């Protein structure tokens, strides 16, 4: 099977800024692929390389096996849901959704019918006559989605589509998007800087750092087995242990990661420290312990006793939860 999108050593430099730098990437058709990374790490640029709004400085991009280096955006069978939705403010919702069909020359009646279908798909029947300004954030997001889907793209790009929504709405939309992707069987390429979002939605994800891919894999891979300190630090709320501490805890003298959920408190143990912060999370309490230079977070499940701040405690952990990493 040809992959939906392939990057072969793709770079995009803006003057001295290496926005994307030597990226190799394969996105399997039908998958939900997330790009995760801190601000400025090159995620948006990658997406724009796929849609054609940026051209690679070097390297080749193939979409379903075809090289697209000479194809302008409007001839790529790829559609985008923009971060700010970029709805046309002068058109009503129906015309927004039907836009792709209109520019292809489809008649008014047919394209309006299709637009209504799409609006039904995103649960916005009856909103066709409104202007975008009359919609809430979540509704706009769904219009943007419908507008992109009406073209029947084989790859749908989504650039932080949920960034502007509040938490409650964001969670609801995450579920909807995931369900839709499932239903339509499309390839989704999803950009976010929200770790939880990436982990919970993607089949595969790439973690970006300074224009390069730090790690690529399934969410479980990345959460449980971060390849580098950067990934461990960025993705989970993992504890990153320096070599001394790893050794003290019984491992080799290497950097390692340890998830807070796998970290427990104990009366005694090889490593102990002072409780410096407590955070009630509802589902439990996060206890931050300072051991020497290192801060280690442990999760005390709801209902178990929480040591007060300032006290000294030791930590224990599931041995197999300790994950050794490269030095990068």
């Amino acid at each position, binding site marked *: 099977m040809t992959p939906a999108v392939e990057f072969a050593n793709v770079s995009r430099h803006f003057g001295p800024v290496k926005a994307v730098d030597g990226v190799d990437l394969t996105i399997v058709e039908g998958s939900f692929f997330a790009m995760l990374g801190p601000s400025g790490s090159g995620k948006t640029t990658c997406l724009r390389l796929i*849609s*054609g*709004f940026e051209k690679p400085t070097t390297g080749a991009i193939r979409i379903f096996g075809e090289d697209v280096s000479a194809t*302008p*955006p*409007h*001839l790529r069978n*790829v*559609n*985008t849901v*923009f*971060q*700010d*939705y*970029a*709805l*046309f*403010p*002068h058109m009503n919702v129906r015309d927004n959704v039907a*836009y*792709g069909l*209109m*520019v*292809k020359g489809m008649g008014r009646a047919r394209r309006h019918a299709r637009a209504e279908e799409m609006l039904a798909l995103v649960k916005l029947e009856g909103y066709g006559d409104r202007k975008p300004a009359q919609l809430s954030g979540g509704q706009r997001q769904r219009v943007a989605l419908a*507008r*992109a889907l009406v*073209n029947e793209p084989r790859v749908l790009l989504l650039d932080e589509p949920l960034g502007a929504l509040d938490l409650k709405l964001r969670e609801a939309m995450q579920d909807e998007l995931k369900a839709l992707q499932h239903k339509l069987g499309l390839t989704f390429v999803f950009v976010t800087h929200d770790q939880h979002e990436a982990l919970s939605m993607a089949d595969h994800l790439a973690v970006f750092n300074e224009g390069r891919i730090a790690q690529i894999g399934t969410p479980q891979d990345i959460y449980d087995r971060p390849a580098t300190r950067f990934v461990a630090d960025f993705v989970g709320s993992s504890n990153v242990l320096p070599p001394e501490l790893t050794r003290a805890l019984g491992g080799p003298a290497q950097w390692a990661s340890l998830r807070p959920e796998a970290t427990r408190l104990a009366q005694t143990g090889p490593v102990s420290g002072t409780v410096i912060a407590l955070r009630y999370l509802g589902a439990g309490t996060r206890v931050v312990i300072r051991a020497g230079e290192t801060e280690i977070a442990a999760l005390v499940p709801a209902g178990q006793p929480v040591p007060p701040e300032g006290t000294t405690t030791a930590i224990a952990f599931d041995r197999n939860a300790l994950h050794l990493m490269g030095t990068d």
Partner: protein
Amino acid sequence: MLSDRPSLLLKITAIGGLLFLHLPILFIFLYAFTTEERTYQFPPPGLTLKWFAVAWNRADIWPPLYLSLKVAAIATVLAMILGTLAAAAMSRARFFGRDQLSLLIILPIALPGVITGMSLRSAFGIMDIPFSTWTIVLGHATFCIVIVYNNAVARMRRLSGGIMEASADLGANAFQTFRHVLLPNLGSALLAGGMLAFALSFDEVIVTTFTAGQQSTLPIWMLNELVRPRQRPVTNVVAIVVFAATFLPILIAYYLTRGGSETAGMGK
């Protein structure tokens, strides 16, 4: 906000300032009705409506009016095309010479009109171009460009840049994007800019005296009338009519560009 109430001093100075702006206009109105026709005495000796009829019947008003309308219309159209193109170019990524270009666009209103006029006249002289409607248009379009440009650039700045890309992303080519997305969104700003440019051109006298040769636009006709008074109230009647005629376009321009700051008026 609790303290969000203008102080009395501010209120008085603001309203006083506005009244100051309208004081002479009051007299223009008043003297359109005076019975005395050469020099204005204050208070006017009597009031009459006859000047409106006189103005209507004065054959020498119509050709300058027609010329002014024609010049303003052509200059506005030219300025709209050139101003929009310049705005479109400037709203794109930075390019070499961008700052210089923005300076160049602003220059015709930042430099006094007498300079623009003189320069054009020198150029016409050197190149042996005879005065015609087009020499007037040339001058007017030059300083109207910046009005349209300012309106268009302000709107483009406000337009989310994404919608042009969204259009391409959905399969529209550059022309479709222009027609279906850019134009409708820019339209009202262009219209507002166009109306302001028209009004500016219509009232221009400084540059025009240099580029008109022996032709007479409405302001030049007025200048002659004012200097050589012959039924002087007629000029006031004409001023009132123009005043009334511009009221609506200005109001429309305001509502079209409301919320933006692009209606700032520009220089002569």
